């Protein structure tokens, strides 16, 4: 867990699930429009928010939509007129949102989405892996993983600020059941403290009859002149600007986390976090709760004299390239544990780590591991054992599946 300095603001410790932490964060951020559709294991987020609205604790419009596609579409409409919008989903629900995910990013709307990571069907599974959000990594959203319930709350509050700073939607990803349905103590800042931290949302364009604008209209490949003869962007320039915003988001993610630490006494690590990595000869890389499990494995390895450490990928998009280069500098071996797969290639985080290190001057052996698909339990002992086995591998090795009994 992140360092527990004395909290600078009023806080209250609540023993809550990850889903409740997410709902409470949305409430503290005074979301104005919530739209969501039931799906396991996300449902508790929206149930909790609808209870807040029904009880008058949250002054928001709660729209009971008929699908996830519509849930995100409602958020797109609400955000387009200047309301702070929130939705949450999992797995097939996120896949059903694929079209509006791209749309929200292209329209540069600061929507926040809670993605309670769950395995993709077929076959049906309601249990955890990270294939759902990984499958949407190229939609133009910022994606940030939380490793425990405190980080779910903190990351969600930060997400609204990041989103409206860079005009890019943010997906807050956390593991289904392992976090969503597990109770943990969470320091919850007061409403006043969050109000001070998070300014109101002002949209980049207002839809108003007094100043009519046509948003998201057909845009050609090349720049065109407007009615005043001013050359305006073509499609490609608009895409460049979205990418530029994602690149700039690195600094924003770090700065917002630092501001949050100053206000609330807790940092989530910025782009990534490390554990016992300073002198590590072997590093375990993972995202979400799997990275927490890797920390337990590292303690066991260290007790055996193996200099191991952890890199927890917090921001997945934008990817923490520079931070990875620096954090892996002392290591001879890097083991990347993915809870998802880019079929026909390797784990997506593994591929991204290799790409980040290529040509950087830091070139440890990078070995990919697939673990925990469809809710398969991943124990710290299995991770530690993988590290011990890994010592025998050469510079290049095929992806290994942990505890796959085939």
């Amino acid at each position: 867990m992140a360092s527990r300095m004395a909290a600078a603001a009023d806080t209250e410790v609540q023993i809550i699930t990850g889903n409740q932490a997410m709902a409470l964060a949305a409430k503290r951020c005074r979301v104005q429009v919530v739209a969501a559709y039931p799906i396991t294991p996300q449902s508790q987020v929206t149930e909790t928010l609808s209870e807040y609205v029904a009880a008058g604790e949250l002054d928001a419009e709660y729209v009971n939509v008929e699908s996830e596609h519509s849930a995100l579409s409602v958020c797109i409409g609400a955000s387009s007129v200047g309301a702070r919008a929130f939705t949450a989903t999992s797995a097939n629900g996120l896949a059903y949102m694929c079209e509006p995910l791209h749309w929200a990013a292209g329209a540069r709307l600061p929507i926040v989405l809670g993605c309670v990571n769950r395995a993709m069907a077929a076959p049906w599974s309601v249990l955890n892996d990270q294939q759902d959000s990984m499958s949407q990594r190229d939609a133009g959203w910022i994606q940030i993983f939380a490793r425990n319930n405190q980080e779910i709350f903190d990351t969600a509050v930060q997400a609204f600020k990041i989103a409206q700073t860079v005009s890019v939607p943010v997906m807050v990803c956390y593991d289904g059941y392992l976090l969503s349905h597990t109770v943990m103590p969470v320091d919850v800042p007061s409403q006043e403290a969050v109000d001070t931290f998070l300014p109101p949302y002002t949209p980049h364009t207002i839809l108003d009859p007094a100043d009519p604008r046509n948003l998201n209209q057909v845009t050609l490949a090349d720049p065109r002149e407007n009615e005043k003869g001013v050359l305006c962007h073509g499609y490609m320039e608009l895409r460049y600007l979205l990418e530029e915003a994602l690149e700039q988001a690195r600094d924003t993610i770090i700065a917002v986390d630092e501001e949050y630490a100053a206000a609330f006494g807790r940092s989530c690590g910025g782009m990534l976090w490390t554990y016992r990595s300073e002198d590590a000869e072997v590093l375990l890389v993972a995202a979400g709760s799997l990275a927490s499990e890797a920390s337990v494995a590292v303690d066991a390895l260290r007790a055996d004299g193996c200099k191991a450490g952890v890199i927890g990928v917090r921001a997945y998009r934008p990817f923490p390239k520079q931070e990875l280069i620096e954090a892996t500098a002392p290591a001879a071996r890097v083991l990347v544990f993915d809870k998802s797969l880019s079929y026909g290639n390797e784990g997506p985080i593994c591929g991204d780590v290799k790409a980040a290190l290529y040509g950087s001057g830091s070139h440890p052996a990078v070995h990919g591991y697939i673990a925990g698909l469809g809710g398969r339990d991943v124990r710290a002992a299995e991770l530690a054992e993988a590290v011990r086995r890994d010592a025998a591998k050469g510079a290049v090795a095929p992806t290994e599946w942990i505890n796959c009994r085939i």
Partner: protein
Amino acid sequence: MTNLIDLPGEEYMLPGNRACAGCGLALAYRYILKALDGRAIMCVPASCLTVLGGMYPVSSVRMPWLNVTFPSTAATASGVVAGLKALGRKDVTVVAMAGDGGTVDIGIQALSGAAERNTDLLYICYDNEAYMNTGVQRSSATPKGVKTTTTPVGGKREHKKDMAGIMEAHHLAYIATASPAFPDDLYDKVRKARDMRGTRYIHVYAPCPPGWLFHTKDTVNVGRISVETGAVVLYEIEDGAFRLTGLSKEIADFDELKPLTTYLECQGRFRDLDAATIEELETRVARRWDRYVARDEEADA
């Protein structure tokens, strides 16, 4: 009924837009915007209307427009409604406007959801009876027998979906059908719907010269004939009360429908109909007309 010469002179649709010559949608849209007095936010999915609106960075419409994904018109509009409500804005009508494909096919789920929630918006379907923007492919609003690029031999085999009937099953405050060939009737209906609350639905039949294969000068004629023959029936349902309007009401009270063949023969898309299909269409139109007239008389009684 509003007289045509009394319509507001203010134009919200600018000249030089990208609609085809003789576009029935363009005619309808002009009157719809006049009826809204410009106090509306439009939500528009992929459709001919998107093309009409022009390409960035210029727009042919002096209205705030939100282009939305094809299936999500009513859902995104629901979000605009929710957002405006959350922000305390009450002076704007939210209008969702989509074609027949965007309404009766890919958009029906979002529309049914918004209607079930009685979302405070006006939904207008402009029905040119096929996917015209993508090159005249059949939709579930295409009538039986029509040749399209995806029903090239023998025409479409299935009958048209009764979307206004489906919307009636949602028990809305207001449902109407309209045609740009009767702009006064269309204007009054949009005006009435504008001032009501909850979900309101207007189904506008929009003749399409390149899709229906008639001369661009004949758009209004084809629209008139569609009503004269009963292929299109003008009506409104206000809080459940059914009423024929405009020319359909006049025909019911004082006249009779012209032969359907007048309508089928004034355009090229029905050119390959065989006798049996013509008879089937005639029977269907006649039965439907009788049902509408009976409902209208029931309301009069």
